[in-house]
């Protein structure tokens, strides 16, 4: 059954690609491009993480010690932008590049050259974003949501950010079109839609969401640009515009964006949990349906981000109800993962630990999301650290933990080497401990009324902030351990067996050698 392709080509390294740096500049190979996406996103993760360390260092004690308020605001703004657009999103695209063709039995992505271009736009955008710290007036400082009037008043840094977002958006749209086309047109014979691995399904739906909302983001930043430089008044009340309209347009992009960052993590977790439970995914079809359902619902809930911006009661109730209903399909997913583990022959290697950590902490983030969705409560907690705690539970212990799970799970397939299991477990437990130390206490800070995006605070918030900062430093250092584990694995890890995880059932494990050859599935496998 396991017709192994690639063996006929020596070790699969007989391709004729340029060597050295030009290999990476000119590559159209999905694996090379996936690798570049992953390294790029990790580099940006370290940049965004360094900004977070700066934020937490300033908040370690009340008073202004390290960062002046203007620079502090630039740090919070760029931390958010870099983590969302530079770290989490490209990391998922990296996974898609590596995994989607291998999981559906395709030889490469549909548009291989566009794939190269999608990636190489990213360093350009990142350079614009990071260099904005060094222009007169500094980087954008109006928060990652760049609401006007702050964003219409900022300096050159805001323009650099706008162009950067344009480029990142173009890259995302190209990447999504590529992923959609690959999945719809290049599946191996017999790989019907309802046989696709969950990771592929979640990425298909995510890619559609990206194509839907990225142009909206491009539109709104363009309106911002023309408001700033070309005399329009889209968001200027004095000229007949409306700053609240910006919030509506931004969040029409922004809320699906949240799901863009979480649906592929659902996909990764849906691959890892069955493998280490040695059982098929419970309720595969309901997982597919729930993913589609979440995607549709995500487009009709945006205004829950702006309950306090001024809205009729009808609007508040509509968005409150619609938001709370998202908990239903999300609950279906959590139930299915739990049911998959039920009575499974479970083992707890690092990917599984991160996947279980994901479920546990994502549920906390989900529940605090439902709490924030309730209008009267949201009016109390909006713009406080409660909201910060909520979305870090979703994006760090959600998206990031799933990315770690995926990295540990697939690194043997990518490199042919095993990571150090002991160190991997240390990475998980330290991340788990320090993550909660950093963010759990922020719920209390928020409920006590500490506002977000401030460099200084009243004395009553001092203790929890100190705990949170210490946790953040620990979490930041722990991620260097992840870097060490990965480099150690790539350079000198033990040789991985052909099938390191005996519960894995997807094509890249069953039909390809380990490590995966440079060109895989030149002849498509037959899927039964």
């Amino acid at each position, binding site marked *: 059954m396991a017709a192994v392709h690639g063996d006929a080509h020596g070790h699969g390294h007989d391709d004729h690609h340029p060597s050295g740096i030009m290999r990476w500049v000119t590559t159209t190979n999905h694996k090379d491009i996936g690798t570049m996406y992953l390294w790029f996103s990790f580099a940006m993760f370290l940049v965004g993480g360094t900004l977070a360390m700066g934020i937490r260092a300033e908040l370690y004690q009340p008073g202004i010690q390290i960062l002046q308020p203007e620079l502090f605001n630039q740090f919070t703004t760029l931390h958010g932008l870099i983590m969302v657009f530079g770290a989490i999103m490209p990391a998922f695209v990296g996974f898609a590049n590596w995994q989607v063709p291998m999981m559906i039995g395709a030889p490469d992505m549909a548009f291989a050259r566009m794939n190269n271009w999608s990636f190489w736009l990213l360093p350009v955008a990142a350079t614009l974003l990071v260099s904005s710290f060094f222009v007169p007036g500094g980087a954008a400082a109006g928060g990652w949501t760049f609401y006007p009037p702050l964003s219409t008043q900022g300096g050159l840094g805001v323009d650099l950010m706008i162009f950067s977002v344009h480029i990142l958006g173009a890259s995302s749209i190209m990447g999504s079109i590529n992923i959609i086309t690959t999945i719809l047109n290049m599946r191996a014979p017999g790989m*019907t839609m*309802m046989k696709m691995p969950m990771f592929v399904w979640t990425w298909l739906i995510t890619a559609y969401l990206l194509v839907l909302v990225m142009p909206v983001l491009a539109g709104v930043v363009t309106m911002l640009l023309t408001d700033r430089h070309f005399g329009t008044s889209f968001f200027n009340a004095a000229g007949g515009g409306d700053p609240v309209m910006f919030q509506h347009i931004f969040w029409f992009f922004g809320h699906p964006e949240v799901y863009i960052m979480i649906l592929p993590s659902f996909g990764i977790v849906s691959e890892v949990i069955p493998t280490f439970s040695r059982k098929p995914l419970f309720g595969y079809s309901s997982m597919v349906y*729930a993913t589609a359902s979440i995607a*549709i*619902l995500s*487009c009709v809930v945006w205004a829950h981000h702006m309950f306090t911006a001024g809205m009729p009661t*009808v609007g508040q109730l509509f968005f409150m109800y619609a938001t709370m209903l998202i908990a239903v399909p999300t609950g279906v997913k959590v139930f299915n993962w739990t049911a998959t583990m039920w009575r499974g022959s479970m083992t707890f290697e690092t990917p599984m630990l991160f996947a279980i950590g994901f479920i546990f902490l994502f549920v906390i983030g989900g529940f605090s999301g439902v709490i924030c969705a309730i209008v009267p409560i949201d009016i109390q907690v909006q713009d406080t650290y409660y909201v910060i705690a909520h979305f870090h539970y979703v994006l760090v212990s959600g998206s990031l933990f799933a990315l770690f799970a995926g990295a540990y799970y697939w690194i043997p397939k990518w490199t042919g080497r095993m990571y150090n299991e002991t160190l991997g477990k240390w990475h998980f437990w330290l991340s788990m401990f320090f993550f909660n130390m950093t963010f759990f206490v922020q719920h209390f800070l928020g409920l006590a009324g500490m506002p977000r995006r401030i460099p200084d605070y009243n004395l009553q918030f001092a203790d929890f902030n100190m705990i949170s900062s210490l946790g953040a430093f620990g979490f930041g250092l722990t991620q260097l351990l992840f870097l060490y584990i990965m480099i150690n694995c790539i350079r000198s890890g033990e040789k991985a067996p052909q099938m390191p995880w005996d519960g894995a059932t997807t094509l890249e494990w069953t039909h390809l050698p380990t490590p995966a050859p440079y060109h895989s599935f030149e002849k498509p496998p037959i899927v039964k």
Partner: protein
Amino acid sequence: MDKITKKTANASVWQIAKAVISAFMGIRKKSDLENDAATLKPAQVIIGGIIGGLLFVIGVLLLVKLVLS
């Protein structure tokens, strides 16, 4: 058996509606699903999903009106 089944046309509106409703709930019986996969075309499901989304929005709006009246 595993060859991509030729879509037989004329899935009933009710069948599309059932598929969409169960998708919104996130729960579907396996036999029904296989039946859907054999008979429904993607376009039907997508159009059904859009209509379902509109009905969902109208439904929540009606609920809000009811609550506020």
